[in-house]
């Protein structure tokens, strides 16, 4: 057992011996890690080290590519995600992407409720209204948009759009939220709003976030995971990792020697 890898008791998400390859190109090598409930976990590492690949396997978004193969297991609350229907899995996990991507043909309201619409789930109007308001309040967008819910989501600013996308992911009350560099396309003010938001969200949700921004990881994450060339090099409390990295490669990355 690698001593640089912290063991988490009762993880909400448990990744065991996960390897992922595109054709013959191995992008994630034998990663085993547990994610703790109600925390923010940051995935870091130089470009191309497999962060996005790892994240996308967690809700089986990797299956959209045909040339990809995985071995190992991922357990969400003890259930094997590969044995679940991907539809159910994806409803239990929310995902937020690098660029804000609200559906351009839908209103703000419809964007928030999009998951229900896409899944063909019908509800009473009151129920829908409640979900929309709750999700928009969760991302601190309600006050800004409550009078323009019928406007297209694409009219909002970049930061607002990204919060709308987070609201869309929250509408199903997911057990875990996966974010892939959610602030890399945003300006500093919008970025810090999203960071504040993620800190409040972890009270109710578990957050896993890929980031290139080390100070962001330091500011908001509780646990950090450092990957290098597909391998999990180090995993631990963020504070410990930043003050006292165990592995030379982690240290070099954190001190800006590469990446």
């Amino acid at each position, binding site marked *: 057992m690698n001593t640089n890898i912290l063991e988490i008791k009762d993880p909400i998400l448990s990744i065991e011996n996960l390897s992922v390859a595109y054709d013959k190109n191995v992008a994630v090598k034998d990663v085993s890690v547990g994610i703790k409930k109600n925390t923010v976990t940051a995935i870091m590492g130089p470009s191309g080290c497999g962060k996005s690949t790892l994240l996308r396997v967690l809700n089986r978004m990797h299956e959209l590519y045909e040339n990809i193969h995985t071995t190992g297991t991922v357990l969400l609350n003890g259930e094997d995600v590969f044995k679940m229907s991907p539809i159910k899995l994806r409803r239990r996990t929310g995902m937020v992407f690098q660029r804000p991507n609200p559906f351009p043909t839908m209103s703000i309201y419809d964007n928030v409720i999009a998951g229900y619409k896409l899944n*063909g*789930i019908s509800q009473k109007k009151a129920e829908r209204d409640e979900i929309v308001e709750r999700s928009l309040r969760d991302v601190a967008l309600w006050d800004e948009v409550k009078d323009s819910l019928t406007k297209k989501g694409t009219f909002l600013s970049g930061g607002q759009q990204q919060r709308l996308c987070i609201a869309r992911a929250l*509408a199903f009350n997911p057990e875990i939220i996966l974010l892939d560099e959610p602030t890399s396309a945003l300006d500093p003010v919008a970025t810090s709003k999203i960071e504040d938001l993620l800190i409040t969200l972890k009270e109710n949700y578990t957050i896993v976030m890929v980031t290139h921004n080390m100070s962001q990881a330091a500011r908001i994450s509780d646990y950090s995971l450092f990957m290098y060339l597909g391998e999990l090099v180090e995993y631990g409390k963020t504070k410990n990792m930043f003050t006292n990295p165990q592995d030379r490669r982690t240290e070099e990355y954190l001190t800006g020697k590469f990446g």
Partner: protein
Amino acid sequence: MKVTGIKDNIKLRINKDRIFLSLVVLFSVITVSPIVLIIFKLIEKGYKQLSFSFLIEKTPDTLQAMSAISAHEVIPGGIANGILGTFLMVALAGVIAIPVGIISGVYLYENQGKLMANLVRNVSDILQGVPSIVLGLISYMWVVKHITHGFSALSGSVALSIMMLPMIVRSTEETLKMIPQTLKEAGLALGIPYWRVLFGILIPTGFSGLMTGILLAVSRVIGETAPLMLTALGSTVINTNISKPTSAIPLLIWEFYNDPNMVDLIWSSSLLLMIIVLTFNLVSKQVAAQRK
């Protein structure tokens, strides 16, 4: 807060997804099946008649055809008058449309965003949408009535050239737009006169693009029948005088179709027409592919 009562039938949704994909594949196959069926039919019924003499002899008259049919022989003669007529009229149409089309394309490229250029571009687009039969009417009124005073190859060519013109204009402009601006600037910086830069540097650079457009335009007009019915009319003899009525392969097909004795000839003529059209089509694709 808990999200209550998510009720949906995942099995049903997955089945719907699968059925939809099957329908997409099925309908796509149905969509392209006519091309296979048509080509197969033409080959099946037309290959027998297709011989060297079919290419070099002129059309038989209906009596010759009738006696050949009653003697269970292959109908004698060929469609040389149609082949030559098609060649003559398309070539003449090209002579008219290609220079005008290329120069206009250059004009549009050189005057991006200007009012007059936009007008020319829009009008050219309108021309592209005009039904070919209307072009036949126009050429009838212009050429048949006032220039050749009778049905003629020239009037057919004019109709075809108006059809080709907008296609060539568009492909020229699109091709030139893809050539890096620096090339033109480099030429001008060397002190080369403007017209030489345009026609000595830009046009040769975009040559294969222009060629693709021209070949495609040719392949589109070769099979045109309707405008020729109103202009070139058709002829049973080989004609090289552009002010006289002239035949063309599609016109002959139309005549054979209307003459019960000649019906056997439609398939071989259509097969030949398809071979010519598809050759132009595929060659233009090949030229386009080589550019990349």
